């Protein structure tokens, strides 16, 4: 490395070239200050459970990278169990960031560690899932590296090491194509945008364990993890309720049905505003992006803002109004009373 600061863990003596981990040096052209590689943030909990959106992102990184794919993961020792899985989805080198005193998501600390890593491995691009954590983290890194960041991309292409990013804007009415004029180029990607690739079982990679410093720690008092049936981000089936739901008992019916068929329950903004459903269950532009196989929409009209968060394979809508916008994207549209039909589905389940 030509611009080594001597601050990294692997070179206590400040002389990187003799202390680089095995397999690292060969890839670098010392004349060039940017590599062709792509760095992907592997979002996980401290036990190393990887966020499902990471897999599709790795598939895309592999597809567009003209160099290697790096991963950076913050996890405890349990993270080791994920190495083979991550290599099978295309990671060549995984930086496993370790600090035994960190148990939670620490935005400023992680951002500092990733910015440091980026200066060292000089990737052409950094990709991060646009989950709530990712959307908080990515701009911290971009500001530290003084580089461009494009949020919530729904399309990524590459011309050599140049990244061409596209994202919807203005409530999904337009798509803007954006480029960054410096490296690393950064993008967050909507979860569920890219399909999961086929794993290449037995594919090998390198894992490098790296300690990191804590900066401006966030002192967490409690983390209230929701009960089963409420994780809408990774659910295969979603029962979703909208303003066409008139009876409050339907909310309870939806949760009972979800339990029976292994689904989760989500809602449109209207029901979250009413306080009938938690904000964490809201789908759409101001809520979450979901990508279930089946999305059963009870009484959801389907405003653009709601559809902006919806990437379902199949949508069934139940609505009194035959002309509701959701029917134009639905695969089956049932015209009828949402409360009554939901109750009847529960009886049949």
């Amino acid at each position, binding site marked *: 490395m030509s611009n080594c600061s001597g601050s990294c863990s692997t070179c206590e003596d400040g002389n990187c070239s003799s202390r680089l981990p095995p397999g690292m040096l060969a890839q670098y052209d010392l004349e060039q200050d940017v590599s062709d590689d792509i760095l992907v943030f592997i979002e996980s909990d401290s036990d190393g459970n990887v966020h499902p959106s990471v897999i599709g992102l790795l598939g895309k990184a592999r597809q567009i990278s003209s160099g290697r794919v790096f991963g950076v993961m913050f996890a405890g020792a349990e993270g080791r169990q994920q190495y083979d899985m991550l290599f099978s989805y295309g990671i060549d080198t995984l930086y496993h960031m370790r600090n035994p005193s960190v148990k939670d*998501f620490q935005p*400023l600390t992680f*951002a500092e560690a990733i910015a440091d890593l980026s200066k060292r491995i000089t990737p052409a691009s950094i990709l991060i899932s646009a989950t709530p954590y990712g*959307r*908080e983290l*990515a*701009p*911290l890194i*971009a*500001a530290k590296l*003084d*580089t*461009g*960041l*494009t*949020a*919530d991309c729904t399309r990524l292409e590459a011309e050599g090491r140049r990244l061409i990013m596209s994202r*919807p*804007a203005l*409530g999904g*009415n*337009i*798509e*803007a*194509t*954006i480029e*960054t*004029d*410096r490296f690393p180029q950064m993008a967050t990607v909507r979860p569920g945008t890219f399909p999961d690739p086929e794993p290449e079982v037995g594919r090998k990679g390198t894992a490098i364990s790296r300690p990191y410093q804590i900066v*401006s720690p*966030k002192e*967490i*008092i*409690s983390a209230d993890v*929701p009960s089963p049936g409420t*994780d809408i*981000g990774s659910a295969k*089936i979603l029962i979703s309720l909208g303003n066409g739901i008139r009876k409050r008992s339907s909310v309870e019916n939806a949760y009972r049905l979800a339990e029976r068929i292994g689904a989760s329950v989500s809602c449109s903004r209207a029901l979250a505003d009413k306080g009938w459903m938690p*904000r*964490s269950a809201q789908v759409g*532009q*101001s809520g979450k992006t979901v990508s279930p196989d*089946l999305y059963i929409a009870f009484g959801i009209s389907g405003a653009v803002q709601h559809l902006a968060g919806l990437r379902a394979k*199949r949508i*069934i809508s139940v609505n009194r109004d*035959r002309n509701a916008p959701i029917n*134009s*994207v*639905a*695969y*089956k*549209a*049932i*015209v*009828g*009373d949402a409360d009554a*039909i939901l109750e*009847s*589905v529960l009886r*049949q389940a």
Partner: protein
Amino acid sequence: MSDLRIAVMVKQVPDPNLVEISEDGRLMRENVPSMIDPFGKMALQHAITNKCQHHVDAISMGPMQAQDVLRKSLEFGADDAYLISGREFAGADTIATARTMAAFLSMRDYDLVFCGMQATDGDTAQVPSELAVFLGFNIYSYATSIDLENMTVTQSYERADVVSKLSLPAVITFMRPPHGCVQIPSMTDYVSALKKEIKVVGFADLGIRMCDTGAKGSRTKVKSVSTIIPKKKSTEFIDGADTVSAASAIMKEVKG
């Protein structure tokens, strides 16, 4: 804690259904009906609800017509209002916007900066985090409530509602209005707002370089913009079915 200095960043956004795009991909904000960004308004409501002895400034960056949202903010109860405005700032992406705002905020010694979690025109949610880095503040995104007496903040992440100790100074972004609160400006607020002056801050007041703001300070470039034509899917309608057979049609799909 008392006597905190709070800055609330509010943004004027165009009505998303009426906006037009220029050929180089910028939003044509002129002559489009506009409004105060709903998330920024939530941030303002949190600041006003928790005001007590704190000092609350409303701050916006944009063209002169953005004074409208600051006037509204004063009516809601903000103490002072500042508009960062100038040709030099035009075409700023998130990083140039955050740098410009940080230049202003750092001159005024705030303890807290409140923002909406994102603005409805860009939806990027990037400015607050970038602002936090440039100011050297802590960041708490997706806040649902704050308690300035016990200094705690609740954030709603994907899998958990996280309660943390609020360490100052900090940038906080809000995703919902304060619980059970509907703030309507009182007659006194309304009248005193009329007497207040909105201070306009220009490029020369900020002490930043041309290359750090506006289009020149931007690190991203919009290459092209296209209208999204929704894909037409053929929908199978089930119309006039009784409740039970409609329900069976759904169960058939569930069982796959």
